[in-house]
């Protein structure tokens, strides 16, 4: 299982608001 990381943070924040779901925001320099 992998984490469904997305790079469009604005979009994720919009969806979080619509779904009333919290967000994990990862600042990470590891290879993607």
């Amino acid at each position, binding site marked *: *299982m*992998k*984490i*469904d*990381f*997305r*790079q*469009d*943070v604005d979009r*994720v*924040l919009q*969806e*979080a*608001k619509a*779904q*009333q*779901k*919290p*967000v*994990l*925001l*990862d*600042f*990470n*320099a*590891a290879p*993607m």
Partner: protein
Amino acid sequence: MWPNERVARFVNENLLAARVHPRQNPDAFKQYSERYKAPWTPTILLLDSDGVEHHRIEGFLPVDDLLAQLMIGRARIAFDAEQWADAERRFREVVDTLPNTDAAAEALYWSGVAPYKATGNPASLKATGQAFKERYRDSPWAKKASVWT
């Protein structure tokens, strides 16, 4: 630690996940690292559905400690939303399932606070203070709970 199965399951079941990379996406990294004052990597923020930060994890952690911190962050979001029963359940789950992590003592502390906030009955604080006499006695959270007994 992200490829770990337990971490991935928790994140996918509880959170929407976004990642900003300082070299592959420098504009986004600059924008969001400035907005959230997060210049260092790795840094993980737990945000509520309005984008407000409730918990921060800075630096590398082994799997169990990372998972415990993510669980604490999710519990903290419930706590700050005054969802006391959900917060208590989530804090207690950290203590029960990851008792040897650094976060467990913090979770034990807040698992006593949440029911007190719900009811005003100090019994849960007293019980938590007593519990700290049996476990995590050297943690800073035991000192904070020492006034409850």
